[in-house]
């Protein structure tokens, strides 16, 4: 512990550390005010690095930078404030005038230098070999424009390319599943297929007209029970000519193809079991859904609300409808009433041990968004939810598809704090421990 060295942390590591990990790592340590200001600094950096920025928020961000620096001045020694810390004040001004940061930062330039460095073959004339190879590459690059069947130099290809519609990546197995479960998945798929929705509505209104006195909850249960059968009959009666619907109505095959890894929407998902073997985490999912929200099992008047559900993938299925397959994730969901809460800084905490919604474990694969669960160091029971990355790269973009909501952010908002403090006190010592620093220095302080 005495001679720790911070070696090998590259710029991008610091970026990730600052943007995602530091606020989590300092939870539960440090006095509250110091922790808060570091967290706010991280959130500040995260929000200025966003790819899409709302211009109205920039004034607030500029003030936020100043307040963060003032607070740092309260707690940290003067030698902390080198010129780099001071420059934080001016960052927002440049965004205001010149646009988003990601077009003006050095990451691509530094990466380019790495490539140029690799061009050096003759160490006696490093610059000459860089130029010669650059010219050669330029020429080849020019040729690739006019040749078919070649890949372009210098534009990376996403490894998800061609897999956007979903593709299993590992651990394929065909398993005969319990009928009840498959029908559950089938029902979920029906509920989330656009073509089926008019049928759902008509079935619901049919139920309502036949049972005018029933309450919402009873109707929902009854609908869930009888819809599948009704839908099948309806489709065969109507002699519907949409191929897709016909096969859907016939119902699924009970032999289900399962995967342990699946790529969809530029994201990779693993099952929990596969994840435990891996060094990365790919099993966390979240689903933002408009759904009937029952605040308790006795609640008969649900409210429609948009709620984020958090869960972990247990199994990945491709439900087989003979002509086509539909990928669904079978997940363990966390009870959003009691096991999810948002703390005062705006982090979402979940308790992954308590599972609920066992009767409805499925989601469509395309709906899933990735999240990461990180154990909360201040409280073992809870895990912190970190938003997953949404990739925008890839040259198959025809139009700008950046949306404000899709950009990953640490928190959606800057946590509110009371900056207007009037009690003038010195923030110097820590009271909760007295482990100062010992230094072997012969000269005495004067």
């Amino acid at each position, binding site marked *: 512990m005495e001679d720790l060295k911070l070696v090998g942390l590259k710029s991008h590591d610091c970026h990730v550390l600052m943007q995602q990990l530091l606020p989590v790592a300092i939870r539960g340590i440090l006095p509250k005010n110091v922790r808060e200001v570091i967290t706010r600094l991280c959130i500040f950096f995260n929000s200025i690095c966003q790819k899409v920025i709302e211009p109205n928020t920039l004034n607030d961000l500029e003030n936020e930078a100043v307040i963060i620096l003032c607070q740092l001045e309260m707690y940290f020694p*003067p030698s902390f404030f080198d010129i780099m810390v001071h420059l934080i004040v001016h960052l927002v001004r440049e965004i205001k005038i010149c646009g*988003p940061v990601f077009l003006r930062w050095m990451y691509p330039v530094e990466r380019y230098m790495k490539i140029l460095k690799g061009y050096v073959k003759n160490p006696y004339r490093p610059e000459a070999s860089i130029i010669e190879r650059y010219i*050669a590459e330029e020429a080849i690059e020019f040729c690739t424009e006019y040749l078919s069947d070649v890949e372009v130099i210098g534009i990376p290809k996403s490894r998800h390319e061609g897999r956007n519609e979903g593709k299993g990546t590992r651990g394929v197995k065909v398993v005969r599943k319990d009928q009840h479960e498959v029908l559950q998945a089938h029902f979920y798929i029906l509920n989330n297929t656009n073509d089926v929705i008019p049928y759902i509505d008509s079935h619901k209104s049919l139920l309502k007209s036949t049972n005018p006195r029933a309450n919402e909850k009873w109707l929902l249960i009854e609908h869930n029970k009888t819809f599948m059968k009704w839908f099948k009959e309806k489709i065969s009666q109507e002699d519907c000519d949409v191929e897709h619907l016909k096969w859907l109505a016939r119902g699924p095959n009970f032999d289900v193809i399962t995967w342990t890894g699946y790529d969809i929407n530029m994201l990779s998902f693993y099952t929990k079991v596969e994840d435990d073997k891996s060094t990365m985490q790919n099993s966390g999912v979240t689903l933002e859904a408009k759904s009937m929200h029952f605040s308790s099992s006795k609640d008969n008047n649900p409210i429609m609300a948009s709620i984020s559900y958090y869960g972990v993938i247990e199994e990945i299925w491709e439900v087989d409808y003979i002509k086509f397959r539909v990928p669904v994730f079978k997940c363990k969901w966390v009870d959003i009433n009691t096991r999810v809460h948002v703390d005062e800084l705006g982090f979402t905490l979940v308790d992954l041990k308590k599972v609920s919604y066992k009767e409805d474990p499925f989601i469509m694969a395309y709906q899933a968004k990735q999240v990461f669960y990180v154990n909360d160091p201040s409280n073992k029971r809870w895990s912190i939810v970190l938003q*997953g990355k949404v990739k925008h790269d890839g040259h198959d973009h025809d139009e700008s598809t950046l949306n404000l909501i899709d950009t990953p952010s640490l928190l959606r908002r800057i946590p509110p704090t009371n900056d207007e403090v009037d009690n003038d006190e010195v923030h110097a010592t820590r009271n909760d421990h007295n482990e100062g620093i010992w230094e072997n220095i012969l000269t005495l302080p004067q």
Partner: protein
Amino acid sequence: MLPTRHYEAKKILCPMGMEYQKIHACPNDCILYRKEFETLTKCPRCGVSRFKVKDDDMDEDNMKKGPPAKVLWYLPIIPRFKRLFANVNDAKNLVWHANGRKSDGLLRHAADSPQWKKIDTLYPQFGSDPRNLRLGLATDGMNPYGNLSSKHSSWPVLLIIYNLPYWLSMKRKYMMLSMMISGPKQPENDIDVYLSPLIEDLRLLWDEGVKVFDAHGNDNFNLRALLFCTINDFPAYGNLSGYSVKGHYACPICEENTSYHQLKHGRKTCYIGHRKFLRRNHSYRRLKKAFNGCQEDKIAHPPLTGEEVYERVCQVNVTFGKILKKPIMKNIWKKNSIFFQLPYWAKLDVRHCIDVMHVEKNVCDSIIGTLLNIKGKTKDDVNSRKDLVEMGLRLELQPQAYGKRTYLPPACHTLSKVEKKSFVHASAKLKYHKDTLQILRVLSQWKI
């Protein structure tokens, strides 16, 4: 058929390759051997030979030929722009900012920014044709010899085209290497000497423009280009802008109004006093003990505009070169930057961008170093405590001597051993996505 030999491959590629110019330079960065100096064999300023001289060879004849002592490689930009426009796809992408962009008031691209729009209104003729290019210039020192501890530093100059869609403009294919300043020494303040061919081309592209065939629109047009901003780390920021980014007035935006404090024991300058950026009646301004012992009533000055900067630098005369003994300059502006030769340069609000990457990295390093008390990285050591005593602040923290050792009482950011453990464990045991793997490797090396 693939060529069997390297020589053959080169022969095939040769007619397709673009041209480049080798411009000889004075090894002390005084001049480039071009234009009026084209035929000289000796630098007119410092008298050093244009060619490499062997130590024992003092013969006059040998001084007139041989390999050049220092070379600037210039890859002319105009033919490269012509080639870009000759390709249908690229030409289409180059007008993306006018045609394909979503404009809903959010900042997504440099084209959404006020500076872009300001250029459009100031120079309506330039702004009216979306094919006119707006460029970013990035430069940084790099060591071409792997990780050897050699100090050799070459400076590539890259151009970024902001007309392209944001998912392409920073990609390797579209970042143009326009110049390579060879080492071994850094050009530092004399980088202007080397940039001159590029700036001349940029002036030509601004003043007159070049006839270019546009494959997308299928017509000839007059291409003009503008330098939108430069991207640099902070030392290079100083070299390009001509501002001295060291010393008391290190901040190029606050300029003379930078608030600094010279630390006696730490022997550094620190830049405190950020309360002056707060609004006039903010309660922090009234606090005394929590900050530096007094109330703050200064107000931050608005940053200098381009014209004001130009006023300050237009009188500064410098002779470039490393050997000449320079008079010690009191002026914080070191030179009249070559960019001011571009007529529009003084009109831009942000000419040089502060690089967020370096700021973030350095701040992150300082925070982690201070929190974990890593030797050499921590900002909280005996000297900084002594400085606090000197400033008369937070006297509870003053170092206490116990025989040979000195005890620094815990400050509010000092971690206890348990907390350090918790910090390292929390970050080292994360399972996250692949960006973090490197960090985990580093963190897991920290043994407690």
